[in-house]
């Protein structure tokens, strides 16, 4: 018991010094269990490879340049799709958030199309656009669009009326109120929308690549299935998880800390 406490004490101290450790250490027992199960060979090695087999495979794919190429393809698709999605979603959200009539009119439509999940569009998109980039981009834009629109509207509506009143009685015009009060007030929600949208978009992309793809991480995994390389599939899965962790904790979380948390609108976790 005391030993456990002292291990915990060390853990707390080291992670305080290197926060990156806190992201890695929880995986150690998980990897250990995985290695143990693989070592027992309950399943044949080809079905359940151990961690070392997977690391070797990852190294091989990196060395050949396949992993980096496919990763770059997937990330580029996500970036283009997400940028286009945001470029449509934020102005649309602002318009719907500002205009009561537009809100009443578009809300049922937004909810309806939000319910038709991204990959549910794939059959019809394949008919329309074929197996190509257009289909994949459409799916990502679609997935990013709805969470961002809905959260932008929600954010604009959650700005305290007193803030708008204060700005009015300080002489701000409606346009200044939008840019100085309503949009900054909605920003934490917009970021939440982005976070969800990118998360869904990332998943939708992999699904689209499995069905449509000629390259990308989803394609790598599905292609490996054809070749019967379970190691390669597992490499793909690990890359997905690690990449999302990086995007979320190195890109999105710092933005959240610098805005909503700093302003006291969102409580720090």
């Amino acid at each position, binding site marked *: 018991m005391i030993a456990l406490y002292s291990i915990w004490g060390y853990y707390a101290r080291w992670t305080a010094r290197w926060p990156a450790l806190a992201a890695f250490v929880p995986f150690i027992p998980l990897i250990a269990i995985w290695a143990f199960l693989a070592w027992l060979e309950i399943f044949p090695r080809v079905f359940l490879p151990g961690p070392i087999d997977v690391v070797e495979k990852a190294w091989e794919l990196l060395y050949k340049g396949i992993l980096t190429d496919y990763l770059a393809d997937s990330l580029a698709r996500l970036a283009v799709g997400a940028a286009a999605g945001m470029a449509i979603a934020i102005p649309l959200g602002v318009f719907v958030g500002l205009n009561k009539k537009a809100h009443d009119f578009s809300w049922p439509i937004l909810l309806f199309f939000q319910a038709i999940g991204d990959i549910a569009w794939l059959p019809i998109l394949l008919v329309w656009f074929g197996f190509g980039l257009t289909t994949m981009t459409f799916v990502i834009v679609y997935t990013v669009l709805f969470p961002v629109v809905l959260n932008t509207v929600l954010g604009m509506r959650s700005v*305290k009326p*007193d*803030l708008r*009143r*204060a*700005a*009015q*009685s*300080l*002489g*701000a*015009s409606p346009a*200044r109120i939008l840019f*100085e*009060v309503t949009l*900054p*007030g909605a*920003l934490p929600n917009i970021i939440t929308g982005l976070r969800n949208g990118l998360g869904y978009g990332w998943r939708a992309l992999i699904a689209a690549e499995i069905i449509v793809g000629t390259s990308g991480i989803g394609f790598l995994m599905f292609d490996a299935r054809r070749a019967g390389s379970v190691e390669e599939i597992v490499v793909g899965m690990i890359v997905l998880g690690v990449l999302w962790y990086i995007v979320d904790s190195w890109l999105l979380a710092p933005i959240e800390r610098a*805005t909503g948390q*700093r*302003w*006291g*609108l969102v409580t720090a976790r």
Partner: protein
Amino acid sequence: MKSLALENLSKTYFDPYRGIQHTAIKDVSLKVNEGDFVAVVGPSGCGKSTILNMIAGFVPITGGRILVDGREVKGPGPDRGVVFQSHALFPWKTVTENVTFGPKMRGVGKAERAKIAEEYLALAGLSHAADKYPAELSGGMQQRVGVVRALANNPDVLLMDEPFASVDAQTRMTLQEELTRIWEERRPTVVFITHDVTEAVFLANRVVVLSKGHVLSEVDIPLERPRSWDKLNEDDQFKALSNKVLQLVRSA
């Protein structure tokens, strides 16, 4: 700073649950001279906040009119500065940016704004907090910023809606003394809404007692200035006036 006049002001709401017109304010007339400090007190639900919201232009008037320096009020405007109970500071702006928000909206240049910030932050003893965000300040400090943000825009009339109601008792007394000092220095025209009778008597030149949407009585407060709690706490005239107003409020 300019004068304010309410002429036969009234406000009726449609109550959708009962299907009737509800009268919140009826026939309120009030004159606040330039440089005067008027406090409006009354039990909750007497309509004091509604009156302030109508003067500020936040809610429409249904009868009578409001004149600021002779001009009729048609909606919110920078001629009437407002201090809110909820402080309503912009959370994404620093103290300085909050205080200079009004001047910035009026197109005042950067150098001039820096001077305004310096002057008004010093006035409220906030110079050390210039670059902080509102969430990093105590409740009392937030309210100080709220007061000087309204003052820094140089309004004709300063409207204060229970600004000290949500801070602790000690801080409230300090804020009251600071407001008194600022008023004595600069003589802005102030309408101060509160449910706290001693606060009203301490701050104002005149206390208006409101009851069920109309003016019950007006009480002049001829206490000498400068005022402070040390002087007034045990002052017989202060006690007598507070008692008088309290009796009126309780009968309201």
